[in-house]
């Protein structure tokens, strides 16, 4: 009994990490540019597909194809910002949100048109597929373990980036006051593009991590619908909040799938979301200071 419970918690944590990473992408873009990018899940899907295509090339070692896929997604993220988002900045936020939703649909359609991607479900071959790691009585698949480890490393890197680097501090400055940031000598437009690059790269990593578990298909981006509540639970604007929100949803889903009647699992994320918002309307890590109008 206890072992089963712990086992569920562990796999919940692993899936929660993926939710957290996608939520992180939402938060990064929202904090700096106040745009909610509903195509975040589709960025993740594209990252997984690109890794799949590159991995399909015989001469390409797995790890190289992962690195290249992440870099390619960073470029795509930046390109989307330049081509689609920057021209509409300053328009009502509703229009921009609609554009990102449209972008998501467009990306899903595009993926199903690309030869070799299509509407089928693909398996991303990984060197660690089908392996398991045992911790005493508990058994964890290498895929799940990889998700947890990579998420930890990525969080440490992002923390160091935002805390210690000039560029990271510039991003924080922009998120608090764009006008003032200009006069501190920060090239705001260029930094915003870079944020989209980082956000898309994180999404690609999430996609590649998730691929061995849910497989790669054109609709895998719909996981964004679970990651979004994760970001809101965390306070939509807090980076640790996004990860914690993802973990909460991952664990709740895993437990409700086992112990509660059929179908509850799929709504559990939203039940948690409602409960958190009733108790703490700003989310768990929400900022107390409000913006002056």
């Amino acid at each position, binding site marked *: 009994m206890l072992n089963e419970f712990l086992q569920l918690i562990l796999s919940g944590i692993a899936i929660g990490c993926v939710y957290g990473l996608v939520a992180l992408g939402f938060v990064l873009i929202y904090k700096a540019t106040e745009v909610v990018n509903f195509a975040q899940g589709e960025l993740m899907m594209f990252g997984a597909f690109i890794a799949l295509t590159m991995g399909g090339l015989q001469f390409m070692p797995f790890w190289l194809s992962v690195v290249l896929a992440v870099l390619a997604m960073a470029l795509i993220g930046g390109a989307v910002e330049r081509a689609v988002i920057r021209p509409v900045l300053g328009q009502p936020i509703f229009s921009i949100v609609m554009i990102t939703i449209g972008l998501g649909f467009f990306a899903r359609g595009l993926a199903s048109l690309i030869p070799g991607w299509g509407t089928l479900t693909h398996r991303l071959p990984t060197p660690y597929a089908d392996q398991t790691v045992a911790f005493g009585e508990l058994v964890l698949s290498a895929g799940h373990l990889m998700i947890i480890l990579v998420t930890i490393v990525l969080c440490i890197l992002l923390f*160091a*980036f935002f805390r*210690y*680097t*000039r*560029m990271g*501090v*510039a991003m*924080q*400055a922009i998120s*608090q*006051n764009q*006008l*003032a940031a*200009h*006069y*501190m*000598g*920060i*090239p*705001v437009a260029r930094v915003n593009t870079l944020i989209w690059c980082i956000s898309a790269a994180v999404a690609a990593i999430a996609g590649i991590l998730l691929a061995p578990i849910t497989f790669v298909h054109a609709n895998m981006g719909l996981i964004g619908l679970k990651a979004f509540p994760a970001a809101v639970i965390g306070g939509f604007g807090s980076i640790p909040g996004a990860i914690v929100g993802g973990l909460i949803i991952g664990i709740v889903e895993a437990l409700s799938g086992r112990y509660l009647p059929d179908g509850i699992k799929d709504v559990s994320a939203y039940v948690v979301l409602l409960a958190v918002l009733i108790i703490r309307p700003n989310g768990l890590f929400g*900022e107390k*200071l409000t913006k002056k109008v």
Partner: protein
Amino acid sequence: MALLTVENLSMEFGGIRAVDDVSFRVGEGEIYTIIGPNGAGKTTIFNMISLIYRSSSGRIWFDGNDLSARKPQDLTHLGLARTFQNIELFEHETVLQNLLVGRHCHSRTRLWQQMLFTPATRRAEIEHREAVEQVIDLLNLQHYRDSVVGNLPYGVQKLIELGRALCARPRILLLDEPSSGLNVEETDDLSFWIEDIRNLLGITVVMIEHDMRLVSQVSDRVLAVSNGRVLAEGTAREIQENPAVAEAYLGTREDVA
């Protein structure tokens, strides 16, 4: 040789001429004040100099550079810093962090050095901190060093914004109504600080100001504008005695009658 030259500057919003053919020069080491009734176009002039608005016509030269080819984020690197009428600080951060962001334009170390916090980064950070501490001492902000800016009184926030601009070590400082919202004592302190900024730090100051006592105390020259046009330029005394200026503020005898 003028440090800042504004030539025939005009700005139109739709059919409205907010600024109409304004020209002036500010010499190195001067304290130069722009006055005028509300809606005269003073802040618009500032916003054009700091490139928030692109002028409809005219040119701005700063230290031999034509600013029309530049972007707002280049200004601090050229040596131009400004404050805003309605404070624009990083509200969620402490005073120290706000001032440190003011040093952003002087940061030279590379990304990997910053991630690993190499000795070069460490030395640079210590230098930045020392520069910030000098500003803290100058403006007497020691008490507030670790307070979050959003919770501090308005007058202190105003001062922090001034301090943040100083941290960039600019050659010219644009102050948009530095005394607005300050009480009489704070305004008196401000006049000493503005003189110190010029005399001790050698920074040229251009300000927009309504408080005529402060204007007379510190300004070398004053520019009076009304309805987007230059009314007069001269010492504070000359401006106050200028009939056109009095008319712009108070109206003509016929208006009263």
